[in-house]
């Protein structure tokens, strides 16, 4: 019996079903893009023209901070610790171990802090927004809201997006501080350095042009997490299965977009 080279359901490139599939997927992609554009337009229009749900915004700020702060603390310490332990041997080789606090601080402030915080929040907050709004869609709570003369975009989406835009930069600054503290712990495994001396060494080369672009970048990260999480949940299908799909898709899409936004932000910062 000859070895089977192709799976029975595999189709060749010139098969009409393959073309049909490509056509369907392209169509589905363009429909999704059109829906996303329409969604962004509605969010922006309603933010400008309709009343801002301030109470709901505060509630969401609390939710985001409360849900993520523990995870960000643990991750921040570990990132600072690992970065220091990994960077120490090559610096020792070049006799530049004194530069370790400054180097780690710059890596954390410029890149690791914002990106790690955003990725954690995409997993924690983005998925929770996707699942919550998705389950509200499935159980007709969004329809009930609409019938009660409340635009769901105004009550559910806008406060969540703006809470993410406000909270992600704050969480990023917190993660930076915790990460730098983790780095001090890392240095003290092998060396003996006081916290005061470590802080002085860490910030000797850090200026505002390291901090400001990172904070601005994390505003955009917040917008991506909020918009994607809410979009996926708000547009979830009708079955219970859709809730899981919405949550999963929110994390995957937001994470991918975060990396793309980071790439663009780095290019822009490089030009400045």
């Amino acid at each position: 019996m000859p070895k089977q080279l192709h799976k029975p359901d595999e189709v060749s490139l010139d098969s009409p079903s393959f073309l049909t599939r490509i056509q369907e997927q392209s169509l589905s992609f363009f429909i999704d893009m059109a829906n996303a554009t329409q969604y962004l337009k509605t969010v922006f229009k309603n933010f400008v023209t309709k009343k801002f749900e301030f109470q709901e915004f505060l509630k969401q700020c609390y939710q985001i901070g409360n849900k993520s702060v523990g995870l960000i603390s643990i991750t921040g310490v570990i990132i600072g610790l690992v970065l220091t332990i990994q960077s120490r041997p090559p610096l020792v080789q070049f006799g530049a171990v004194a530069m370790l606090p400054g180097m780690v601080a710059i890596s954390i402030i410029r890149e690791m802090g914002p990106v790690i915080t955003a990725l954690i929040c995409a997993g924690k907050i983005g998925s929770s927004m996707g699942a919550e709004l998705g389950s509200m869609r499935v159980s007709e709570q969004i329809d009930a809201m609409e019938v009660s003369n409340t635009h769901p975009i105004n009550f559910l989406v806008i406060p969540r997006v703006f809470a993410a835009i406000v909270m992600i930069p704050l969480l990023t600054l917190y993660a930076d501080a915790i990460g730098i503290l983790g780095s001090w712990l890392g240095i003290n495994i092998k060396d003996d350095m006081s916290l005061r001396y470590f802080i002085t060494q860490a910030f000797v080369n850090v200026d505002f042009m390291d901090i400001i672009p990172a904070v601005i970048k994390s505003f955009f990260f917040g917008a991506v997490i909020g918009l994607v999480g809410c979009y996926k949940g708000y547009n979830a299908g009708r079955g219970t299965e859709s809730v899981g799909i919405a949550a999963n898709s929110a994390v995957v899409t937001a994470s991918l977009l975060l990396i793309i936004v980071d790439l663009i932000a780095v290019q822009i910062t490089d030009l400045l």
Partner: protein
Amino acid sequence: MEKQAKKEKEVKEPKNVVIDIKNLKKSFGSLKVLDGIELQLHEKENLVVLGKSGSGKSVLIKCIVSLLKHDKGSITVGKHELTDISDEDLIKVRKKIGFLFQGAALYDSMTVRENLTFALSRIKEKFSKEEINTKIIEALENVGLPDSIDKMPSELSGGMKKRIGLARTLVVHPEIILYDEPTTGLDPITSNEISDLINETKAKFNNSSIIITHDINCVKKVADRIIMIKDGKIYKEGTLEEFTNDDDTYIQSFFK
């Protein structure tokens, strides 16, 4: 004799039409769900809509509150025609209509009190905290659940959720209530209680209702008039008596 005269008088005196639907069509892709529905809901009337699953009953009432946009035809609620209705007029229409969803659709993250407060706070009439509290307690007493005021929806049974859903609908005193399968998934005793509640609500608030259901016991209890939908069209319209006496096998399959 007196009863006969009263019935004749009721037939002769035309009641005001609160919802008027003409030639309503709605499709999802190539699937025609509603194909030329004609329907009138009169003042203080309980109209039951019967039909098998997927026949478009829920789509019909979702079109009435503009949760779904119809493709063709017209829906008139009071003075407002819903095709190309402005946002302001849609708000006015929705203020007149209460909607009891199949799963009650209580907001999971809010307590019963907050669910009812949310509905009240959205009708753009300013109420003091005391007024809101009085209205909420009154609405909960109407459905027999005043003790559930501080419970979360997850702490309520299916029947209780339906009652609280009805209280949330009633708290804003709508002129029309749309019930989407109010007794589905409930035991016979709770189903009877919900059917009684629909009648009590009508007696107390004089509202008109469209009730979507498969539950024949509920139909027998609440229906003033029945319409049956089949293949997207009105299959039969009449009173409970006319339906039960009809020899049509499709109709009888519901009433046996």
